[in-house]
């Protein structure tokens, strides 16, 4: 009987699965961030059997524009929030956490009077907004739309959180970057390890760059050297590395 240690931990397995699905779904003719994010929206939609997904970017004042969507309808659903100036994606950025509304018809007009009616009229029963954030930085929002009640079960929610993490990484790295020789999923994942973010802060000051740039440089360095991000972070926190050569 295989021991529990043989199976990859669920987090890693989800991460590898999601990346595989994205790589498979991304349109062949669109490079870089847009192609990767579009592949992500389509992979998520197919795998989780939802209406669709869209990713929008945030500026200093909140959600600012759709970068890619699984289809035009979801692009327009996202834009409904922008024209209303309110909606789940705004709140997710404001509160720094996912805003999950599986029953939009019931609670929508109470929360977002200017937005909900239009979305409900378009057939949306659920909206799930995930801020693409790393601590104090928020790069965008992943919005997932459902047209059937009961969407996004426990397992679906776990996979969506995984897709959201990968979307954050795509926005940081400029594309869906492969981890080189490392075991798939091992090097890239932005884990909840304190040292990664302490190191980010140190690089910000040492190299006089902003938070996004510091983390992007750390990731680029780790990828180039086939080094797990956490290992690089431990070197930085230990004072042995300041990315001087980047």
């Amino acid at each position: 009987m295989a021991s529990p240690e043989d199976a990859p931990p669920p987090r890693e397995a989800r991460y590898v699965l999601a990346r595989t699905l994205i790589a498979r779904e991304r349109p062949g003719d669109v490079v870089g961030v847009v192609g990767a994010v579009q592949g992500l929206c389509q992979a998520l939609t197919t795998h989780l059997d939802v209406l669709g997904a869209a990713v929008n970017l945030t500026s200093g004042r909140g959600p600012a524009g759709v970068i890619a969507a699984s289809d035009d309808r979801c692009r327009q659903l996202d834009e409904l929030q922008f024209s209303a100036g309110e909606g789940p994606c705004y709140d997710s950025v404001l509160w720094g956490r996912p805003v999950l509304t599986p029953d939009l018809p019931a609670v929508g007009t109470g929360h977002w009077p200017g937005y909900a009616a239009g979305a409900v009229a378009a057939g949306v029963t659920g909206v799930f907004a995930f801020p693409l954030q790393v601590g104090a930085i928020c790069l965008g929002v992943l919005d997932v739309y459902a047209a059937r009640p009961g969407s996004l079960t426990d397992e679906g929610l776990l996979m969506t959180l995984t897709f959201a993490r990968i979307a954050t990484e795509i926005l940081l790295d400029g594309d869906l970057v492969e981890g080189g020789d490392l075991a798939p999923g091992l090097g890239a994942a932005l884990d909840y390890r304190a040292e990664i973010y302490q190191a980010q802060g140190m690089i910000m000051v040492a190299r006089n760059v902003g938070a996004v740039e510091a983390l992007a440089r750390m990731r680029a360095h780790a990828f180039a050297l086939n080094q797990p991000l956490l290992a690089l972070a431990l070197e930085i926190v230990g004072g042995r590395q300041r990315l001087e050569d980047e």
Partner: protein
Amino acid sequence: MISAQRLSRVFVEVADTLVADFDLIDFLHKLAEHTAAVSDAASVGLMLADEDGQLHYMAASTESAKHLELFQLQHAEGPCLECYRTGRPVTVADLSEGDARWPAFTPRAYEAGVRSVHAFPMRLRDRVIGALNVFDEDPMPFRPEDVKIVQALADVATIAIIQERAISRAETLTEQLQGALNSRIVIEQAKGMIAQRSGLDVDTAFERLRAHARSNQVRLADLARAVVSGSADIPTS
């Protein structure tokens, strides 16, 4: 062992802070400090589970780097993890060097001078979201009434994180946990920046951050965010 007077001070402060301007990480640190004072323990730490059931350090009463390390290494093994998984308190009143339950944790704990460990589940009805960990440098048994009091403090921490007394919406747990975990990341980013600027270690950097927030009467969360976004700095000399 537990003083009623100290305990009443805890509840006054808890009531004060569970209102507007609520600052989760700062609150959890204060709760850990109160729990340590109330139970006369060397250190108290709070661990929160992510969506995969992995424990992550959130707050502690101590500035001791060794004890902080002991809290942080329990994401893989230790009394907190056991407590989280079983949903029941784990109590070792007199830690022996040869205790085989946690082969990676026990030697490090013993070496750090820890002689008793207790872990209390942070739970709301049938959901366990983390664990509250108590260390002492002398063997320290917990009487049943003391267990109840520390368990009540762990329950207060749970309510502070979930912000509700019952999980009526299944989504609440995910929303609040993701928010709490991200709040911790903001603090870590600020710690790294202050440590690099000042030449201090990250834990001392954190104490400076907290002290500055207190003396300037700003929320710790807001100050940390401002430091990372570049709109604030703190004196580091």
